[in-house]
């Protein structure tokens, strides 16, 4: 019996000491970022420079982050939402406007990435990583020229094609191919996209997420829809791979950094954002992650590396001219979800 009492006391002590951790004097910055989307040493350096503690947590999708914040009892200071999610969160008053005076390093951010329709004037967010959506293909297996999304409908490559398991991206490709907008909110256009995707289904090896990286490096498929950042990595591992942004146009995506209304420490959060915009820090992050930096000096420096010297990492202005960013389609997103579920369930 004595033993049990002792154990109970020990537990109580442990729990109280752990709860007590929350009340120390050091300032805390709660950062909520995508998994493996930063160089960890950058966080430690920020702690030293500002005498604070960075509490770092990861998520795997925008929606996951959104619901965590929406549930009401999260207290994150800095988040990294993507384009359409920023627009949605601005509409729902979930982001705090940024005080640009506290972010002098904003001057390092490439101006062509600023003032995009999802956040006019960058009142709420600053670009962190960005890129395009395109086709990664195996140059040994695919002999035809790859310059159009049409190649994903070519019967010659039946069961050698990987599509992205993401409603906006995959339905978006089918919309673009028919000349419609990537941000279409027209049901007829969506239905046509659906027919196209069902027609393609017998040719598709699988609808995948991050597995696409390993499968392409391992030569399991010949053609895949990928984000440019993943393409950079795949090409560095497998020389036979090449990346193309089709001529019909594509999506230019942004992962920006923003401060949610749940923030308890806006001043420190802005300091952190400014810190991320610094040249040396941005360079460290882009070298570790392999995604395209929004910092123009870091991008230029990184492009000198062999693995980063390509259009996947550093797209030309020509390519960007035919790309558009996602917009939040509001309630219409359920129609996209319906279409995508139907495509995946189709025989």
């Amino acid at each position, binding site marked *: 019996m004595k033993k049990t009492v002792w154990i109970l006391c020990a537990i109580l002590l442990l729990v109280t000491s752990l709860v007590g951790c929350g009340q120390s004097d050091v300032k805390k910055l709660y950062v909520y970022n*995508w*998994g*493996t989307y930063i160089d960890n040493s950058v966080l430690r350096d920020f702690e030293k420079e500002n005498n604070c503690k960075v*509490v770092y947590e990861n998520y*795997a999708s925008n929606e996951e982050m959104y619901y965590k914040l929406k549930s009401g009892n999260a*207290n994150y200071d800095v988040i990294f939402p993507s384009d359409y999610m920023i627009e949605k969160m601005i509409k729902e008053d979930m982001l705090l406007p940024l005080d640009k005076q506290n972010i002098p390093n904003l001057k390092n951010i490439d101006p062509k990435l600023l003032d995009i329709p999802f956040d006019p004037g960058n009142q709420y967010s600053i670009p962190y990583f960005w890129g395009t959506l395109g086709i990664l293909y195996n140059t040994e297996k695919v002999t035809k020229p790859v310059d159009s999304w049409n190649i994903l409908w070519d019967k010659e490559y039946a069961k050698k094609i990987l599509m992205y398991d993401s409603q906006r991206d995959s339905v978006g490709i089918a919309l673009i191919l028919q000349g419609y907008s990537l941000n279409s909110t027209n049901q007829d256009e969506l239905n046509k996209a659906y027919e196209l995707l069902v027609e393609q289904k017998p040719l598709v090896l699988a609808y995948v997420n*991050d597995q696409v990286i390993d499968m392409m490096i391992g030569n399991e498929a010949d053609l895949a829809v990928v984000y440019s*950042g993943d393409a950079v990595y795949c090409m560095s*591992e497998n020389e036979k791979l090449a990346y193309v942004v089709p001529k019909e146009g594509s999506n230019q995506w942004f992962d920006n950094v923003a401060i949610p209304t749940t923030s308890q420490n806006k001043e420190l959060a802005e300091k952190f954002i400014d810190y991320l915009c610094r040249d040396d820090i941005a360079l460290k992050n882009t070298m570790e992650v392999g995604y395209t930096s929004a910092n123009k000096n870091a991008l230029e420096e990184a492009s000198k590396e062999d693995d980063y010297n390509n259009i996947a990492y550093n797209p030309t202005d020509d390519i960007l001219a035919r790309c558009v960013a996602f917009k939040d389609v509001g309630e219409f997103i359920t129609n996209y979800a319906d279409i995508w579920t139907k495509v995946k369930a189709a025989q």
Partner: protein
Amino acid sequence: MKKVLRNVYLYLMLLFLYAPILVLMVYSFNASKSRGQWGGFTLEWYRRLFMDANIQSALYYTVMIAILATIISTIAGTVSSIGIFLYGNKAQKVMLNVNYIPVINPDIVTGVSMMILFAFVSMRQGFATMLIAHITFCIPYVILSVLPKLRQMDVNLIEAAMDLGARPMQIINKVVLAEIRPGIITGALFAFTLSIDDFVISFFTTGSGVSNLSIYVYSMAKRGISPEINALSTLMILTVTLLLFIINRRSNKKTKTTGERI
């Protein structure tokens, strides 16, 4: 012929069970970050693992929560099963059904309702909320493994102990707990494995930088899972195997000596 078939079947089963684990272990030594190709032998991922503060904190929270949840839910579960056992027949049935509901309830429902509950009482999500959630979903399993042992117990033992002058606390300690010990141990093991394994409920109930291994691994989904996780899994599997090996040897020795004495 029959024997050969039986052996083939057995080895096939073992192969299916262990092949994925073996592949995982082999790839923890892969110099290439990708699972798509073999880039030569390296210990780099192990080195990185020991330097990665994020993984270490995730491991710390996983083990910490598992241990605390196991201890608390085992005590709470054992006490409640003794309580349920002492109820009348009808009340016992009702209580058992109440106990079954969380077991049958899908994880995601438990997780979401926990999250709403914590928001409702405006408790900030973090270590405490995750621990409470883990204790909650472990207790029914402890009860389910302790109660049958209580039922197997000879009730006369308690009366005999009373006749011999044992005080109530002594009866619980020396008679009841001794009788149901195997059930308690099974329950504790159940609780521990459930807690270490859990993703869905933890996902909805955590926050403030507290994340366990399963959440951490899941968050890597956007960019592919780092081989550091393979290295960590390899170490965890080896530790568990070693522990099992030691426990088995010990219990073998014990049965041998007791066997001799008889």
